[in-house]
Structures are given as C-alpha cells and as structure tokens.
C-alpha cells in the first residue's frame, strides 16, 4: 500500500465526499463481465470504490479508517445501523439501497449517485456475501403504525415522553449530545461515539423528518449505544402514539431542512446593541449558518472535529459592533466530566505528527479578518494568513475571554501589544451550547487591527476547537471565507451594490466546504 494512500482517502473522505464531486467523477464501468454473478460484479465495484475505507476483507479497517470516527462498517460482523428491522436483525436490501443512495449524513460514508441501481444491488450482494449471517437469516421489516400527525401539541406531548424514556441521559436535556452518560459512550468496538446532537437533524445517519426518526426509535442503531424501544412498546410502557409524539418532538428540536448557507453575514443597524449572550434582543436578529469542517491542510490535522458549524448574528449602531456566535459543543472545556472522553479520543484517533494531548484544554473560537479591508476579492490565506498577508484575529478562550491578535500562519498568533481596539467578549455555556458575544468599536487606531466601515464587505472566517477532544494547535474545525457587511443608515444602494458585485464574482469555495461538510462531519454524529 503506497504511503500516501491513507492520506488520499482521508482527504477524499473529508473533502470530496460530496454528492457534487461524486457526480463529476467518471462512473465506474465493469463492462465485459455481464455474464458474471451479481456478487462478482459487486466485488469489482467494491474493490474500486469501497475497500479503501471498508478494508480489503470488509472488516472496516481500510488504510484511512483510523482518521474516521465513526469507523467504516465491518461487513463481516454485520451490525447495521439504518434498518427497518428489529434490534439485532439484519437490514433488508431496501435498507441497504437507501444507505447506498443517501450515504450516512454526518459521517465519512458518502452516497453513490455515480452507481446505477443495478450496480448498487451488485455491491450489496457482495457485502452481504462477506457475512455468514445473511445465509442464516432473512430480515423482516417491523410493523409500524401510521403517523397520527405532528403540530405543536404532538411536540409538547413528545417532550414528556423524551423525559419519561430518559433520552436526556445520552442526548442531554435539550438534545445537544451532552447527557450525563455522553462522555463514556462506546460503539461495539469500544471506540468513543457521540450521542447525536438532535438539534442538527440534517446530520442524522438515517435522514431527518418524523418518519425516519420514528423508525430509529423502533430499530435502534445496532453497534452503537442507541437502543431500540420496540420492547418498551410491546410491554406497554409507551404507546404507538407516544412514540409518534416523541418523533415529532425530536423533529421540532431542529430546522425542517438543512439550513441555507449565505456568503454574507449581514450586520443590522439598530439604535441599541443587544447585551450579553442571553439577551432576548438577539432572538430578533437574523442568524446566519456557517458550516465548518476539520482542518486537514496542515498537521496536526483533524478529520473528525467536534464543532460542525456556527451561527453568526450581528448588530451595529454606527459606532460599535456586537457579534454573537453560537455553536454546539457538549463539553464546557476544560471539563473534568469529559476527561475520560479526551483520553479515549487521544487513544483512538490518528495522531498526525503531534500526539493528541490529554491535559486539560480550553475551547477556542477564532474569528479571522484581514489586517486591512482588501481591494477586490483578495483575501489572506484561510489558515490564519501567511507572512505576506497576515490576519487580524479575535481569539476567544473559554477561560480567559477574548483578545485581539495577529497571525501569519497556523499556530503563529501573537496578541496585539496594547489594549487593542477595545474588544470585549462575554460568553455562556449552557446545555451543550456556547454563546459568545463580541463587542468592539468600529473604528480603531491600533496597528494591525481592522477598522469596520459601513457597507463594505469584510472577509471573515471561523475556526473552533473543542479542548475536551484534544483539539488545540491547529486541530479543530474551520470555515472558508465569508463576509460581514455592516448595514449603512440610509442609502440602500450603497449597501446592496458592493454585495451584488461580490456575489457575482462570488467564490464557489463556500459550496465546496458546505457540501463536503454534509457528508463528512464524522464526530460520532452518527
């Protein structure tokens, strides 16, 4: 096996596993073997597309597997997650076809639009042939009742079931994966696994929506701690209706569809700025979603980061700017409750030149800006700039608050000398979520700091790391460049024109991150 192979695959897994990219790849043709058995044709497809992750013998131990969490499926052990069958039973062919079509969102497992349905069936026949279980058993789809319908009342009733069934033990009170047992969860290989963040349903392995969620309750996700509730249903501890209410409640925890991504974060102008991280005034400020993916450009790389996205909101009043950044992170690092998790991550994930540290580490958030408002679409290198074009940073540390800094490359940040431009931050962690509010006067005299002017698109990029997963020194999750634009007081034209110009020339970079992120984010979400 060539030395770079694991890299290639891992990078592929992290970046290219987007539907878009698979589509443009030349489709695999196994012509000339038309007379062969399904299984043989399937094996040829497997060798080309699957074995680098799933391994030569199908045991889930391909050359890049140790960069991934969760690891690729072991087809010999045949513990399948996305089924319509009872806990412990095998998946049906339809179940496997669904996974082949959609992939497992939130993990490295992509969908396969490049394969025809026949090719998918062949490769399914092959992976089934790897396990003796398929010869012994024929899977049967579980009987399911009809959805009595959703709505706010169903969701409210479902919340009570969520409490009664103690889903919070793993998923946390508000569903963000921060339950009291979350730090100790293991998959069947004894590797660390996250309890899914239920507020991000677009990353559910089995798809979003009450129907898919309801199926997961009945079947459980075999090979993971997520149990089946079929027996509780049969024992009368919950009713059919209860489980549908629960499904509607879980669905109500997140958006109905994957959030849109816009390249511009608009900063509203208001008379008064909202206050701290919990000020209700933030509720009326539009939030922009920015997806993040693992930093896999420079060592130490992170293929399975904790943070998969941030929500950005901003308000200014002509003299001062307030930005609130909100993201989910089940640990308030350094968090003794999660020490065990950090130790296990360090023992599990590929270290990439630098050992994954096990000492207590903070959570970090970096906002990168250029040091000066750029001409045109020029932007610094997205990994904290370089010697030629350094970046101006807002660097927030979960225990020390925010400082302004300057960086010319990853890991080369230096705090600004003086008091800087008057950046202040207040933060709150609650139930698996950070909410950080930054405030700064728009103008600055400070050398190396950036002045914010109204109506001018200013590049911004985000970097977040979770100390309790050993993320520090470049390990973490990063976005591509976005823009913040401060809304001017009167002339709309002055505001809109530069935006349009920018969008027309607009980078596709954002979409690449976005697309890759959907398939790749693999920190146990799933």
């Amino acid at each position, binding site marked *: 096996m060539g030395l770079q192979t694991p890299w290639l695959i891992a990078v592929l897994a992290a970046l290219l596993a987007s539907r878009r990219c698979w589509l443009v790849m030349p489709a695999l043709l196994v012509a000339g073997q038309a007379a062969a058995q399904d299984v043989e044709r399937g094996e040829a497809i497997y060798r080309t597309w699957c074995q680098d992750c799933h391994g030569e*013998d199908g*045991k*889930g*131990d391909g050359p890049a*597997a*140790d960069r991934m969490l969760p*690891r690729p499926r*072991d087809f*010999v*052990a045949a*513990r399948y997650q996305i089924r319509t069958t*009872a*806990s*412990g*039973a*095998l998946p049906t062919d339809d179940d496997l076809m669904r996974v082949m079509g959609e992939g497992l969102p939130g993990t490295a497992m992509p969908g396969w639009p490049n394969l025809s349905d026949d090719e998918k069936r062949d490769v399914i026949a092959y992976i089934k042939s790897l396990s*003796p*279980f398929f*010869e*012994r*058993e024929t899977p*049967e789809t579980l009987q399911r009742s009809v959805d009595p319908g959703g709505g706010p009342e169903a969701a409210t009733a479902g919340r009570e079931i969520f409490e*009664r*069934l*103690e889903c919070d*033990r*793993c998923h946390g009170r508000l569903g963000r994966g921060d339950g*009291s*047992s979350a730090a*100790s*969860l*293991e998959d*069947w*290989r*004894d590797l660390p696994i996250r309890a899914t963040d239920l507020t991000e349903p677009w990353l559910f392995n089995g798809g979003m929506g009450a129907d898919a969620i309801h199926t997961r309750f009945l079947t*459980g996700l*075999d*090979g*993971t*701690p*997520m*149990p*089946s*509730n*079929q*027996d*509780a249903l049969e*024992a009368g*501890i*919950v009713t059919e209706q209860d489980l549908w209410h629960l499904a509607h409640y879980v669905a109500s925890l997140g958006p109905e569809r994957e959030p849109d991504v816009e390249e511009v974060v608009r900063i509203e102008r208001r008379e008064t700025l909202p206050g701290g991280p919990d000020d209700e005034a933030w509720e009326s400020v539009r939030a922009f979603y920015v997806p993040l993916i693992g930093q896999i450009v420079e060592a130490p790389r992170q293929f399975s980061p904790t943070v998969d996205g941030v929500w950005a909101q901003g308000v200014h009043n002509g003299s001062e700017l307030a930005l609130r950044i909100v993201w989910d992170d089940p640990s308030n690092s350094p968090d003794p409750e999660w020490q065990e998790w950090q130790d296990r991550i360090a023992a599990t994930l*590929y270290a990439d030149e630098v050992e994954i540290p096990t000492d207590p580490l903070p959570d970090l958030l970096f906002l990168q800006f250029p040091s000066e408002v750029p001409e045109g679409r020029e932007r610094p290198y997205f990994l904290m700039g370089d010697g030629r074009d350094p970046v101006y940073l807002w660097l927030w540390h979960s225990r020390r608050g925010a400082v302004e800094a300057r960086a010319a490359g990853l890991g080369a940040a230096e705090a600004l000398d003086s008091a800087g431009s008057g950046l202040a931050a207040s933060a709150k962690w609650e139930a698996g979520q950070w909410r950080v509010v930054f405030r700064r006067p728009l103008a600055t005299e400070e050398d190396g700091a950036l002045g914010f002017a109204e109506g001018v698109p200013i590049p911004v990029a985000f970097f977040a790391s979770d100390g309790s997963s050993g993320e520090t020194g470049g390990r973490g999750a990063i976005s591509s460049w976005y823009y913040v634009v401060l809304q001017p007081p009167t002339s709309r034209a002055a505001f809109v024109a530069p935006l349009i110009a920018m969008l027309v020339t607009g980078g596709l970079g954002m979409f690449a991150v976005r697309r890759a992120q959907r398939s790749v984010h693999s920190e146990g979400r799933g």
Partner: protein
Amino acid sequence: MFDKTRTWATVAVACLAWACGGGGDAGAGGEAPAVEEAAEAAPIIDPATAGTIAGVIAFKGEAAAPQAIDMSEEPDCADGYGSEGPLTQSVVVNDGRLANVFVYVKEGLDLTFPAPPDPVLLNQENCRYHPHIVGLQVDQPLQISNSDPLLHNINTQPSLNRGFNISQPQAGMETTRDFGVPEVMIPVKCDVHGWMRAYIGVLDHPYFAVSAADGSFSMPKLPPGGYVVEAWHELYGVQTMDVVVGEGETVEVSFTYDAGMAENAEVPLGEPLVLGH
C-alpha cells in the same frame, strides 16, 4: 484478531445444528421453534452410571482489589449498598477462592440437548446485573428484567450470535430473548451506566457452572467419558483440563488462577475486532 476460519467453521457447525432442529435466533426474537423443540426428546442420561465433575477455583497471590464504583449520579442505586458502597465484581476472591468463573464442558459430548423451557434470569438491580455471569443453553429463554426505577439499556455484543440493544425505561419491565448458537462469552453492558457488565455463556448442552462465592462449582449428571473442561474468567483468562469421568464417579477438578495471569490473559468473548495501526 478476528479468526475468520474458526468463526466460519463454528458458524458452519452451528448452521448444521440449526438445520437439525435447533432454530431460533437471538435478537430477531424468533419464538416459533419452541414448540418443535418441546417435541424433541432429551437424551436419556442413565442416573445409575452418570458422574459429576466438581471442584473449586483456587486463587494464588494478591488479587486485584475490587474498585469502588462512583454511582453518585444514580443515588437510587447507590443507596442499595452498605457503608462500603458499590464495588466492582470482576474479581471476587474469598479465602483464596475465586468466584464468577464460568466452567463448562468444551469437548467430549456428542449428544443433542433440546432447550429447557425455563427461562434463565438476568436482573438489573441497584445498577448492577444479577447474576454477573450467566449460563444458558442455545434457544433457552433469557428473561431480562429491570428492578430499578430508571432507564437501563441492555446492549449484548456477541460475535457468533446477533447482538441486540434494547431499552428498559421502567421498573418491572421484562424482556425475553434467546441465542441460537453456542458462544462463550457474550458481553452485556448498559451504556447509561458504564460500569455495568455481565457475561453470558451459551452452550448446546447443560454441563456448565459458575463458581460460587467459595469458589466451588459442580456439573452433575454427566455420562461417563472423557471431556475437555474449560474455566473462563473475565480478567484472568481461560484454562482447560482433560477429565475422565468413570461410571457413577465424582471427579474432583480444581483450577488455579494467580494474579500474574491478568497480564497476558486471553479472554475469549464477542471478539471485538482490533483495528490496525
């Protein structure tokens, strides 16, 4: 590592057994075969000639002391223990005798035994499994019950049988499952309470025992013959012994474990796949 050849061989044998009237698969919840089995005659063991293998499991040296379990998150459970609080059960040594060793006849039987209809119990009480080591026969019902007023999930992780993972969110809940293929041992865990562990041994015959608090065990009603007997401990590994049982004889057998064995013990169970690198 996962020994594929062996697994396939075992499964092949198991399939044969199944085809010859075993039936039922763990996890899939198959109930139907029970009726057929009831019809199948148990082999007749002549009480006049049957013998017994009995003995003790001795322990030499300093045993790993039981560890305190932090149940502070679960006061309802913690209250169930005395002043010394809950302790781990993986090593229980009393006066040089080791408890919780699974002893069974590994080779030498060529009889087919139908599954007994009586269920074997696995109870969850005060956030611990009772018993810690369970033995049962292929297709024999395993009745899992929850005596705690809180959520447990029962996550079984076999490699030759199908594993299941089910929730029991309420006191009094009972679930019945079975396993279709012999397997020593199947780990059981609760993901809500990381300290909870039990092990299930599944055999296609009734000659197995779990060493008691005084280290003793006994396997009665064995037809005379030569057997391979194995002892399994979750930390100290396995030992085997050849035993010949004469007509009507009680053969005393004792296994000795010592503290050093923990170092390079081979502990066969659900054989989790060890990944490379």
